[in-house]
């Protein structure tokens, strides 16, 4: 049947800290992923996304903090781990194993494993079962990871930069298969990626990490609904004063001018902004939502992570 996210939490992370020597990679990180949600974890390079995912999967041991799946602690917990599938960028396979042998190993480990699904998916991932996985190309190894991962029918999929390396057709097919599990079984997905255009389609929630912390965690609609690009111009007489008055009423993230037209990046409710603008009778007024990529750039810009002047 058709599922939607309720309010039940699948993954709960609170106050997780991880140090590497003197370097603090995770600094009291908290995060919440609802059951049946597709959660996009984004952030600049070095924000701690992969460290967090490795801590979540028990590859690193966190120095402090709590991480639970469905209310149960994850670390070294076999029962909980058997409900999770992890697909990352540097996949590991046993050197001598064929796809078939690896599938048998998965069937032993994951209680929900479905042979029927594995065979069905062979129509999509058309790779000879007798081939050794490590002999396959990087992209094909990734296909195998999804093929096996989806067949394991996990409750949660943790994906770290997963889709890169797949060609556009396999990328779309793989997303369709993953979203089918989300729609049909209420599978939960946590995905870290820099492909924000893609995340915009597949995610319902996003978390933006910076400096080992979670800085914004909201539904995608709320993230995008609270920040806008405005183009505004006033009649010549007193236009600068009017613009100054208008912007003084707003939470302004960015401003640029081109002739008499000002382009503003503004936080706040769209209707409120429209009403404020109306008070100053602009001659040009246009307000459009930002793309997730723009939200990322301007939100992090506000925290000091900005474009440098490239024209040296």
């Amino acid at each position, binding site marked *: 049947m*058709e599922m*939607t*996210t309720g309010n039940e939490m699948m993954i709960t992370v609170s106050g997780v800290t991880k140090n590497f020597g003197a370097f603090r990679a995770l600094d009291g990180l908290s995060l919440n992923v609802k059951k049946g*949600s*597709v959660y996009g974890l984004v952030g600049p390079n070095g924000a701690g996304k992969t460290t967090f995912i490795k801590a979540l999967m028990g590859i690193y041991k966190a120095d402090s903090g709590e991480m639970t799946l469905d209310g149960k602690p994850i670390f070294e917990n076999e029962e909980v781990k058997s409900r999770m599938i992890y697909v990352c960028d540097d996949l590991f396979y046993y050197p001598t194993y064929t796809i078939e042998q690896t599938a048998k190993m998965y069937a032993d480990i994951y209680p929900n494993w479905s042979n029927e699904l594995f065979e069905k998916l062979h129509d999509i991932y058309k790779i000879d079962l007798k081939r050794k996985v490590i002999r396959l190309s990087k992209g094909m190894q990734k296909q195998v990871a999804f093929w096996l991962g989806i067949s394991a029918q996990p409750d949660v999929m943790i994906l770290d930069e997963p889709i890169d390396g797949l060609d556009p057709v396999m990328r779309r097919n793989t997303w369709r298969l993953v*979203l089918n599990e989300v729609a049909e079984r209420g599978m939960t997905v946590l995905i870290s990626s820099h492909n924000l255009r893609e995340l915009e389609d597949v995610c319902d929630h996003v978390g933006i990490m910076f400096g080992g912390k979670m800085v914004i965690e909201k539904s*995608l*609609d709320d993230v995008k609904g609270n920040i806008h690009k405005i183009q505004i111009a006033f009649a010549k007489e007193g236009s600068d004063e009017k613009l100054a008055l208008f912007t003084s009423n707003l939470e302004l993230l960015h401003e640029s001018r081109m002739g008499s037209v000002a382009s503003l990046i503004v936080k706040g409710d769209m209707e409120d902004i429209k009403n404020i603008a109306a008070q100053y009778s602009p001659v040009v007024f246009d307000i459009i939502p*930002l793309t997730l990529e723009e939200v990322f750039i301007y939100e992090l810009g506000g925290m000091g992570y900005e474009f440098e002047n490239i024209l040296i």
Partner: protein
Amino acid sequence: MFQLEPGDRRPLYEQIKENIKFLIIGGSLADGDRIPSVRELAVNMAINPNTIQKAYKELENEGYIHSLKAKGYFVSPRSQAEKAAGNEVLAKFTDAARELMYTGKTFDELCGIIEQIYKGGNIDGNDNGQ
């Protein structure tokens, strides 16, 4: 069934809503037709099922579609959809009127246009003259 414009910046659920409305108002989807399930549309378009669900819920609240238990979503009788469409067009009209006000059109000018429409006059821009 439909394709989303890659350059469209509006939230996805809004775009999906609008596309389905367009199909209903245009008659491509008729009263009683079954529309794709959340899962079908999500998988087909490679879009988050919760987003599709949100669009369907809003279409249901606006009277365009209704759900039948265990059967899926169906297009609602036309009168309901038309009423909903009327409200939406009215909202657009209000926006347009406000914009025209900002750009200096007077109250009388707008009333003149409305009067002409209701009297069945031909208005085709400003150069039509009286």
